[in-house]
């Protein structure tokens, strides 16, 4: 009961709050209703940021730009249509949402397709806001009955008008408050649903580990742009509501201060909580209302500044975040099961089944070939004209000194690095220029050196999201993830957060995620690193089984492990092919001993 309530708290409490707000809306002091309406609108603006920041991982300082632009656009339409046809909302809201979404998508395209760093993205979004602020001061335009008059702003915006026709009257403050509550609640619940949907799950994964998400075959840039566009639409709706509320817009909406106020709402309420921004706006709005409402010069900024500092220092997750962790303290810890694991044992029969099944759905194993592949970083050339064919049947090992370019070679194959020359093909397909996710969809699966798992998600969810990347079907993904879970022997830990697993278990989970993709070519970068000897033995079994059905390339330092694979070994040195053959021949090769194995006793 207690746990159920916790899990659906994002639905129940906002619903109760909405009902309560509607219940009191009639009896509220008209003036308080008027002011409180603006808090709800700011909360909605905060929600738009929470979508892209708390969920999407990008601190956007352009939310006020979408808000302002959406507001202007919707207001212009409303000014022209509402006096004749009424229904200011029906004109303003969709136009604002659309315009906000378009601008956000355009900015998102630049940010995400350029693959900008986090700070740089934030700054670019901020630049947009600043640019608007300086340009709109003098921007003058007449659109029908609407006059955008530079810093004098846009006035004459109709209020909240619900009726049709010329006679329709604008709503009184109390009714307007109830209306804004309803609209905001609707947007909130849609957002809540969206963030819980499969789309939302992918958004979450991108935030947690963007590279891993792309390595699962998701077109992360598209998802990010869509998410940003949605957040822009929400901001646009908030902008329209604000325009109708204030009946006036002005370039100060794009000011530095406004832009930075939005993150505060989110932080106060709790980042990533969706409902938090409303609470944050209510607290900040209430605070500045209470402090600065009178004639005596309230030192609102002084107090707000102090509150902000204290908040960052002492209440990192905001009010809702803090309440949530307090609540969790009274619930059983789902991660307890993590400590009860025994040693991993691969069930080869199940593994065979999975691989046969995969072959049926994804087709036969593919060759991976490189032809004169070339990659440089400044003066360093980690991949220097490597031509090599990898075929199914037996495992291929890549060894070589540190810095020989083994990892870089794998990363070039999977597309994490873009080669400057040569070609890379998967089967008959030339994938040299294809983005990472496209290669994965064509059948490549890669596991990086460090285990990459979505720490906040449970073990089952991790596998599910990997399976869903290929199948795009919830039921099939359920089945596949359950099967792999059983094969890895992690059944008891299915509800444990991946971050609670030990390093070795995370390695296995990561490998399991790669298997969920039913890859036709598997690239493993030092999979045995950090594994105990018995785990390494299990791994060897797994790799050998895998190689019967797919092409497998393994980078490894552990010579004992390489030996047990009984496969083909390639030695790389300074980015070039140096030697190849089986491990025995190489051990007898003087050159290899010189550059790599050494002649000591510790090998």
């Amino acid at each position, binding site marked *: 009961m207690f746990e159920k309530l916790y899990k659906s708290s994002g639905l129940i409490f906002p619903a109760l709050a909405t009902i309560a*707000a509607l219940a009191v809306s009639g009896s509220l002091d008209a003036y308080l209703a008027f002011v409180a309406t603006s808090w709800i609108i700011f909360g909605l603006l905060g929600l738009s940021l929470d979508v892209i920041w708390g969920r999407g991982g990008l601190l956007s300082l352009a939310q006020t730009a979408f808000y302002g632009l959406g507001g202007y656009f919707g207001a212009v339409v409303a000014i022209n249509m509402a006096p004749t046809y009424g229904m200011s909302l029906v004109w303003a809201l969709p136009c604002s949402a659309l315009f906000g979404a378009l601008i956000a998508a355009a900015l998102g395209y630049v940010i995400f397709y350029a693959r900008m760093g986090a700070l740089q993205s934030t700054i670019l979004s901020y630049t947009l806001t600043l640019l608007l602020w300086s340009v709109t001061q*003098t921007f003058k335009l007449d659109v029908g009955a609407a006059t955008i008059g530079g810093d004098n702003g846009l006035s004459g915006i109709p209020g909240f008008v619900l009726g049709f026709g010329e006679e329709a009257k604008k709503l009184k403050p109390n009714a307007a408050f109830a209306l804004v509550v309803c609209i905001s609640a609707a947007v909130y619940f849609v957002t809540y649903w969206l963030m819980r949907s499969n789309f939302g799950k992918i958004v979450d994964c991108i935030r947690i580990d963007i590279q891993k998400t792309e390595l699962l075959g998701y077109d992360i840039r598209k998802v990010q742009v869509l998410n940003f566009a949605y957040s822009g639409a929400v901001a646009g709706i908030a902008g329209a509501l604000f325009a109708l509320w204030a009946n006036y817009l002005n370039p100060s909406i794009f000011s530095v201060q406004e832009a930075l106020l939005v993150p505060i709402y989110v932080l106060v309420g709790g980042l990533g909580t969706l409902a938090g921004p409303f609470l944050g706006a209510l607290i900040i709005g209430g605070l500045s209302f209470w402090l600065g409402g009178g004639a005596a010069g309230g030192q609102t900024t002084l107090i707000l500044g102090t509150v902000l500092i204290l908040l960052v220092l002492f209440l990192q997750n905001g009010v809702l975040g803090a309440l949530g962790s307090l609540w969790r303290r009274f619930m059983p810890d789902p991660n307890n099961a993590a400590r009860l694991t025994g040693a991993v044992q691969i069930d080869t029969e199940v593994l065979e089944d999975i691989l046969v099944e995969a072959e049926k759905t994804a087709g036969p194993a593919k060759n991976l070939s490189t032809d004169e592949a070339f990659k440089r970083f400044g003066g360093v050339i980690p991949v220097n004209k490597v031509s090599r064919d990898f075929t199914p049947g037996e495992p291929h090992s890549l060894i070589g000194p540190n810095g020989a370019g083994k990892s870089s070679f794998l990363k070039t194959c999977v597309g994490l690095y873009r080669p400057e020359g040569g070609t890379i093909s998967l089967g008959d397909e030339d994938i040299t220029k294809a983005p990472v996710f496209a290669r994965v969809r064509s059948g490549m699966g890669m596991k990086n050196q460090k285990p990459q798992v979505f720490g906040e998600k449970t073990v089952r969810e991790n596998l599910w999201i990997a399976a869903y990347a290929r199948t795009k079907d919830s039921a099939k993904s359920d089945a596949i993830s359950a099967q792999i879970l059983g094969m890895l022997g992690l059944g008891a830990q299915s509800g444990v957060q991946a971050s609670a697993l030990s390093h070795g278990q995370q390695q296995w989970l990561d490998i399991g995620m790669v298997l969920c993709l039913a890859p036709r070519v598997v690239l493993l970068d030092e999979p045995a690193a950090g594994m105990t000897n018995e785990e390494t033995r299990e791994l060897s079994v797994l790799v050998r089984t895998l190689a019967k059905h797919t092409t497998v390339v393994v980078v490894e330092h552990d010579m004992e492990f390489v030996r047990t694979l009984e496969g083909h070994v390639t030695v790389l040195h300074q980015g070039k092919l140096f030697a190849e053959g089986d491990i025995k021949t190489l051990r007898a090769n003087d050159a290899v001993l010189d550059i790599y194995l050494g002649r000591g006793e510790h090998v």
Partner: protein
Amino acid sequence: MKNTLKDVLGRLSLTSVIALASSAAFADVKVGAIFDLTGGLNIYGIQQNNALNLAIKNVNAAGGVNGETVTVVGYDAQSELSKYTQFAQTSVLRDGISAMFAGLTSSSREAIRPIFREANIPYFYSSLYEGGACDRQTFVTGSSASQQLNVLMNWAVETYGPKIYIMAPDYNFGTISGHWIHKFAADNGAEVVGEDYLALSVTDYAPTIQKIQAASPDVVVALPVGAAQTGFLEQFAAAGLKDTIGVVSTNYGSGNQQVVVSPQAGEGLVSAMGYFPSVESDANAAFKAAWEAEYGSDTPIVAGAVDVWNAVHLWAAAVNKAGTADTEEVIAALESGLTFEAPNGTVTLEPGSHHLRQDVYIARGNANSGFDIVQTFEDSAPTYENEMCDLIENPDLAEHFIPEG
């Protein structure tokens, strides 16, 4: 969680409403005031607010309006535009005011003007501005750009010569003033040889100073806004140009500029405004004495304060004349050609445009950060507003006229 908080807030604000209401219970006539008492614009806001309180005190001392005491419901807009809308709505929805005195910037006026128009409450805007605001509820007591520039350009062309350069902020006040400079220059047979409109964020005026030198004008019309733009005057002087090129302005000295600028840069700059503290008249002497008794003499009194003083007295006169504080009667009285002996000379409220006919002074900055009046132009009319805005003919007009081009 959310609900309880809202309840608490609700109760809090209700109690404050009750407190405010009870404190105002014995007052008969209430007026609202929204000025920037904190934040970057408070140099104007505090003085405007001071002038308002002083004027109300003066009115009450003279027996109030129709024998009733006037009380003020005041708000601090904190130099934030959104606060203006919020408090304007508050005063309408909650306070039951009979008149509103508010605003400094044009955007603050434009933000709240529709609210008072809808609520049908007289609204007094008291600040020098670019001109053109027009609706039945709005009354402007500051001087408009055309009003000041008309006489200034006349004087400047005569004194310095026919080649004019414009340095102005890049928003409505600057660009519309620029328009009038072009017009009045042409009227006087002079020529605008160059112009530069600057963002408020600019701190480096080297480009402007080069452009001015490249255009080699006889006089620069400089309309710096904010402390950063005041830096222009400093840099202009430091480049050694002040001695060869004249500098005139319609807003230099409207706030603090003459204090911020060092004496070597400020001396000799010419400004044209509706009020300077150095105006010599009995009304000004009495006003300054009352002001100093109340607030001391640390800072020079700005024109905006006098505009507020005038607004309050015009309103009080109208209420007394109408015999009631009801809007319709008061507007009718205000539109009856009221005059008032103001600190800056006799002012007359134009019935059609709701703007003031008033004296404009040309003054020159002296070595003590003060001004010496050079010439007085009496009874200058707001010609543009009179031409565009006739609220007697068209009471339904609600516009902000901007000159074409």
